C-alpha cells in the first residue's frame, strides 16, 4: 500500500517537473514565453545575425523566458548542444545549398520542426534574416501548426534586379500572415514595408546593440605621431571597397603620417592589394585578413578614425563598435546609418571618393588641432545608447503583444494568401499551405503528440539550469557540456522524487 502511494507521488512529481510547462501552452496570457529562434545563420558561422540571435537569447533567458535556437548542421556539429545559461541549440541535419542557406522543398523540414515545437512546448516562433530559407520554412510550418510568429529582417534590398524581385515576392508571401515583424532601423522598416506590402502597424523597429564592455577605449595603444584610419568590414562590393581603393592613394600622398589598417576578407581584397602595390604603400596599409570577433577590439583601439564606406546598410554595427572604442567615425550616408549615432559622434559623407576624402581631411585637421572628443567621452556616450538588455526588453513587448493576438485559422490564412499576394503566387502558396496542413494531419496520425516526450527545460520559468552551476558550460567549452546538462537535469528529477 505504502509502496503504491509512493509510486503515485513519484509519478505526479515527475509529471510536474516534466510537463509543468504544458498548462501555460493553453493560456498564453502568461508573461513568460517559450520562444524558438530559427535561422540558418548561427555560430560557428560568424556575423551580425549570429551574434544578434545569441545575445538576444541570452538576455531573454535572463528575463526568465525559455529560449531555444534551431539552425542547420555545420559540418561535424549536428544534434543538440547547450551553450551558456542552458541555451539549447538544435543543429538539424539539413542539406546546405548556397551561402549557408539550406535547400528547401518546403515540406521536408516539417516533421523535425514539429517534433521540436511540440516537445519544447513552443508558443512563439521567431525567425531571423530574409536570406535564411530555414527561417521562412519555420514560419510557414509554425503558422500551419497555429503558433504565433515573429520575423526579424536584418538587411536592405533593392527593387530592380531579378533576384530582388523574386526575394521580395517570397517575402510578401511569407510575411503576409506573420503576426509581427521587427526591423533594425527606420530605413529598414520602410524598405521591408515596401518590399513585403505590409501594414506598417505590425512592423516594429528595434535596433541592434553592442556589448559595451567588450569595446572599451585604450588610447595608449595608438601609435604616437601618426594618424591611423581603421576599416573593418567584409571586403565585398556592398561595403564600398572600391571607394576605399580610391581614398587610400589620395590621402596617403597628401598626409605622410597617415596609416590604414584594414580588417576583413572577401573578393575585393585584390582591389586593395593592387592599389597598395601600385603606390608602394606596403608600410602604411596593413591588411589583416579575416578577424575573429574577439580580435576586433584590439584592432579598433589602435586607430584614431573609423571609416565605413558601405553602399547599403540596414543598421551598421561596425560604426557603433568603432565609436564604443572611442574612435571618431566617418561614414557614408546610406540606408539606416544616419539614425545610428548622434550627429556630433559621426561625420556623414556622400558615397563618393571626393566627399569621403573631404570628410576625412576635416577629421584629420581636427585631430591635429586636438579638437576631437576624447575616446573616454565618446565611449561613455555610446555605452548607454545600445544595450542588449534594452533590445531584449523591447522584443519582450513585441512578444507580449503577439501572444494576445489570435493566430489565423487555415481558411482565413488561405483567404489572406489568395488576396494579398497577387493572383499567381497567392494561389500557388495557398495550395502549398493546404498541402502542408494535410501533411501535418498525416504526421499527427503517424506520430501523435502523446508519443513525444516533453523536453526537460534548461531555461525558462521552470528551468533547471540556474539551480545547477556547471563548471564547463562556457561558450568555448560547450562541445561536451550537453552530457552534463542531461546528467544534472535528470539528477534533479531524481532529487525531486526522493
Amino acid at each position, binding site marked *: 500500500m505504502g509502496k503504491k502511494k509512493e509510486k503515485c507521488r513519484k509519478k505526479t512529481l515527475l509529471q510536474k517537473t*516534466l510537463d509543468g510547462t504544458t498548462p501555460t501552452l493553453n493560456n498564453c496570457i502568461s508573461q513568460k514565453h517559450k520562444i524558438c529562434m530559427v535561422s540558418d545563420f548561427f555560430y560557428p558561422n560568424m556575423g551580425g545575425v549570429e551574434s544578434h540571435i545569441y545575445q538576444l537569447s541570452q538576455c531573454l533567458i535572463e528575463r526568465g523566458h525559455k529560449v531555444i535556437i534551431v539552425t542547420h548542421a555545420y559540418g561535424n556539429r549536428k544534434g543538440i548542444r547547450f551553450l551558456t545559461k542552458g541555451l539549447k541549440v538544435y543543429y538539424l541535419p539539413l542539406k546546405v545549398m548556397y551561402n549557408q542557406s539550406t535547400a528547401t522543398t518546403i515540406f521536408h523540414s516539417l516533421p523535425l520542426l514539429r517534433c521540436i515545437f511540440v516537445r519544447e512546448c513552443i508558443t512563439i516562433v521567431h525567425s531571423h534574416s530574409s536570406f535564411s530559407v530555414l527561417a521562412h520554412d519555420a514560419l510557414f510550418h509554425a503558422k500551419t501548426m497555429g503558433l504565433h510568429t515573429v520575423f526579424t529582417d536584418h538587411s536592405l534590398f533593392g527593387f530592380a534586379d531579378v533576384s530582388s524581385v523574386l526575394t521580395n515576392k517570397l517575402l510578401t508571401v511569407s510575411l503576409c500572415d506573420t503576426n509581427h515583424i521587427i526591423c533594425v532601423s527606420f530605413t529598414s522598416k520602410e524598405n521591408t514595408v515596401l518590399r513585403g506590402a505590409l501594414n506598417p502597424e505590425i512592423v516594429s523597429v528595434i535596433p541592434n546593440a553592442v556589448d559595451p564592455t567588450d569595446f572599451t577605449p585604450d588610447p595608449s595603444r595608438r601609435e604616437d605621431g601618426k594618424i591611423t584610419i581603421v576599416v573593418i568590414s567584409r571586403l565585398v562590393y556592398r561595403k564600398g571597397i572600391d571607394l576605399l581603393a580610391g581614398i587610400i592613394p589620395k590621402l596617403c600622398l597628401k598626409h605622410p603620417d597617415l596609416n590604414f589598417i584594414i580588417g576583413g576578407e572577401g573578393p575585393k581584397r585584390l582591389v586593395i592589394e593592387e592599389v597598395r602595390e601600385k603606390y608602394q604603400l606596403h608600410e602604411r596599409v596593413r591588411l589583416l585578413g579575416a578577424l575573429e570577433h574577439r580580435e576586433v577590439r584590439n584592432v579598433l583601439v589602435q586607430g584614431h578614425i573609423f571609416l565605413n564606406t558601405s553602399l547599403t546598410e540596414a543598421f551598421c554595427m561596425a560604426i557603433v563598435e568603432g565609436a564604443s572604442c572611442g574612435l571618431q567615425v566617418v561614414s557614408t550616408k546610406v540606408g539606416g546609418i544616419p539614425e545610428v549615432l548622434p550627429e556630433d559622434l559621426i561625420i556623414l559623407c556622400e558615397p563618393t571618393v571626393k566627399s569621403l576624402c573631404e570628410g576625412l581631411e576635416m577629421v584629420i585637421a581636427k585631430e591635429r588641432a586636438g579638437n576631437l572628443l576624447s575616446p573616454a567621452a565618446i565611449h561613455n556616450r555610446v555605452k548607454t545608447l545600445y544595450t542588449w538588455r534594452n533590445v531584449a526588453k523591447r522584443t519582450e513587448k513585441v512578444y507580449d503583444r503577439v501572444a494576445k493576438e489570435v493566430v489565423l485559422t487555415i481558411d482565413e490564412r488561405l483567404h489572406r494568401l489568395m488576396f494579398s499576394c497577387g493572383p499567381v503566387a497567392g494561389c500557388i502558396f495557398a495550395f502549398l499551405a493546404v498541402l502542408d496542413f494535410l501533411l501535418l494531419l498525416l504526421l499527427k496520425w503517424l506520430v501523435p503528440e502523446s*508519443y513525444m516526450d516533453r523536453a526537460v527545460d534548461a531555461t525558462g520559468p521552470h528551468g533547471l539550469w540556474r539551480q545547477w552551476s556547471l563548471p564547463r558550460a562556457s561558450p568555448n567549452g560547450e562541445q561536451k557540456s550537453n552530457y552534463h546538462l*542531461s546528467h544534472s537535469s535528470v539528477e534533479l528529477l*531524481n532529487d525531486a522524487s526522493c
Partner: protein
Amino acid sequence: MSDEAFSDINGNRISLDCQRHSDFCGEFTVSSPKLSFLKVTGCTCALWLCAYTIFFFTEVTEVLSVAIMLSLVGMMGHLHFLKIDHESLLVIGSLGIQMTSSYASGRESTTFIEMSKVKDVVINEAIYMQRVIYYLCILLKEPLHPNEVGDIVPVFQSCKPRLNCLIEIYKQCQEILAQS
C-alpha cells in the same frame, strides 16, 4: 523486483524488469512485444499473392516455389537477425557493464565494458529518423585523457523506451555506480 508497463517511442507497450541482486549489482531488462501473428500472416499473404499474380500471367511454376522458399527464409532471417525480444543491461559496480540483446530465435549477443573504461551513464538527446528522442548511453573514457569523454555507447537501441522508463533505469544505475 518491479515489473512495470511503459511504452516505446512509437507507442508500443514494453515492459521493464528491474532486478537488484545486491547493492552493487542490478539487471534491467526491457522486453518488446512478441512478433504479432497478424503482421506475419499479412506479410506472407502479400508475398504469396504477388507470386500468384506473376504465376497467373507467366505460368511458370518456379515462381510459386521461390515465393514459398523466400517467405520461409525471410521469416527465419527476421527472427534470427532482426527481431529483438529482450535487451538487458547488467551493471556490476566493481566489474563493469554488460549489454545483452536476445533475438526471437534465441540467439544472444553480448557486449561487456570494463568499469575502468566507463566514465558515466547518462540520458542524452539525439535526432533520430525525423524525430528528437531521449536515449540512455554509456560514456567511455578517452584512453589517453581519462578526464575527457571518448566514445558514446547507446543502450536499448532496438526497444527505444521513452523518458520515464529511461529515468527509472538511470536512477538505479547511478545508485549502483555511486556505491562502487
